[in-house]
């Protein structure tokens, strides 16, 4: 069943699925609709959690937990927000709780993760501004790792806001709904988060 749906989604490209009807069918116990919802959001949820918690295995486990809780709690879903923000709220809260429990885990120094060439290229891009497009730079595994480690150094609340905005591309309103906070708070946290992240990265490559 899952493979069939995956094939259907692949062949149809960006297939427009009526989320409301899917949610209604899933709430009625239709497993096919449940699987469609999972397939629709699994990558985004997993990616967001991974960027916040920084560990693939933990991210997979947390993402599964988030889906199970969201689908089991569908009967309590009143539709005041979209299923998307509701699902992400569950996922982010689970991840926050996980991060609190594992806050004693010490991160490695960012400088140990990258080689000199990568540092130099990143410095050219961020500080000297010699490189216009970062696509080649960002494709490097070392840079990806550096960014993730820099994110891990952020305060969890700032990290969540930055991930939801810059990686998940949520609007400020969606972030406010997901994290259950005011838009002003979202703005200020994004500002501080980005500034801190830039400072962490610049400190790492100098």
């Amino acid at each position, binding site marked *: 069943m899952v493979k069939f749906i995956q094939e259907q989604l692949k062949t149809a490209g960006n297939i427009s699925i009526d989320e409301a009807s899917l949610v209604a069918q899933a709430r009625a116990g239709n497993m096919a609709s449940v699987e469609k919802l999972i397939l629709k959001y699994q*990558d985004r949820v*997993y990616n967001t959690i991974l960027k916040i918690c920084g560990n693939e295995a933990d991210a997979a486990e947390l993402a599964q937990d988030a889906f199970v809780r969201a689908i089991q709690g569908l009967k309590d879903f009143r539709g005041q927000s979209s299923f998307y923000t509701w699902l992400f709220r569950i996922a982010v809260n689970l991840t926050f709780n996980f991060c609190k429990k594992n806050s004693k885990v010490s991160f490695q120094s960012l400088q140990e993760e990258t080689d000199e060439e990568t540092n130099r290229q990143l410095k050219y891009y961020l500080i000297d501004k010699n490189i216009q497009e970062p696509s080649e730079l960002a494709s490097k595994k070392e840079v990806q790792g550096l*960014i993730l480690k820099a994110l891990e150094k952020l305060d969890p609340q700032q990290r969540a806001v930055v991930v939801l905005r810059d990686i998940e591309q949520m609007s400020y309103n969606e972030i406010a709904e997901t994290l259950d906070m005011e838009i002003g708070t979202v*703005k200020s946290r994004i500002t501080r988060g980005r500034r801190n992240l830039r400072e962490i990265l610049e400190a790492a490559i100098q």
Partner: protein
Amino acid sequence: MKDMELIEELLNSYIDGELDERKANEVKRLIDNDMQVRDAFDSLSRYKKLMASVSPAAAPEAFCESVAGRLERQILLEDTSGYHHHAGSRHLVIRRLMTAAAIIVLMAVLSVIVLDVVVPKSSRDKFVNNTLNKKQKLQVLYEKPFADVKPAEEAVVAVVPQKSSPVPIVAKLTLVTDSPVETDWLVGKALMNTGLFDKTVEIDRKTGSVKYVLNCGRDSLVSLLGELSFIWPKCTDAKLQIGTEQPGQYVTVNNVTSQQALEICKADSYGQRIRIANDIAVINNAAAADVLATYFAKQNTGSDLLMPEKPVLTSPEKTQQSTSDNSGGKANLTIMVIGR
């Protein structure tokens, strides 16, 4: 410094497209005119591009199957717990109720079988008839033969007391026999022949004795005694007790014959009945002393034929009393058949 923080926040909102058109134009103008703001904006843009170019991680293989599997396990667990808590207890209660019902049905069947084996059919039929038709249940009068008679003090007040409450015939016939089974059978047959079996309120069978109690009319009683005349040859002794007006007191006629019993019960009134019973009792007692037996032997007269003369009523007062003393046709007879 605070202005720079505000500008930075505006730049972030601008680069994210979260500002309205007016504010966006203001920020754009600021970027164009202020070098420091332009640098900040450029730095922010580069940072944003770098973050956006980070390739997204895809969910692990079989992620969906894992979630679906966990969901199915959860659903199964919920169903199982529901079964344990609700369906299980309900099933247990139903089984207990069914067991109790089966025990009750079994007990009822066993009771019917035991009843069929132990209790005679006649008594059983009587019991069934009484159970099905309680309104027709006959009263046992022999325990208190004059229960319906008002006390003496109240009778004084009554204008015509005897007519309003006629004295019924209350008689106890005790038959002693060597063949109780045959005698019992003849009594039952006599009751059937006279149609009095249904009016039998009690049949008490004990070892060596049978007691019949029946309520009927005087005419029926006379008919029954006529039928019972065939029993006398089977009996070694017969005793008739006639109830008086005083509860528990009887006139006892020993060695009574069937004709004597018939004559007593045929009496038109209570007074006449008592007088005849007394006379026959005296005669039979004398006969028992062999005084009259010798006389009867000499006269070649059977004692069965010895009947007291009917009382002659001479005064109108007495006649009046006699008519008012009419039994009204109500009778209660107890027959005891005792085996020797």
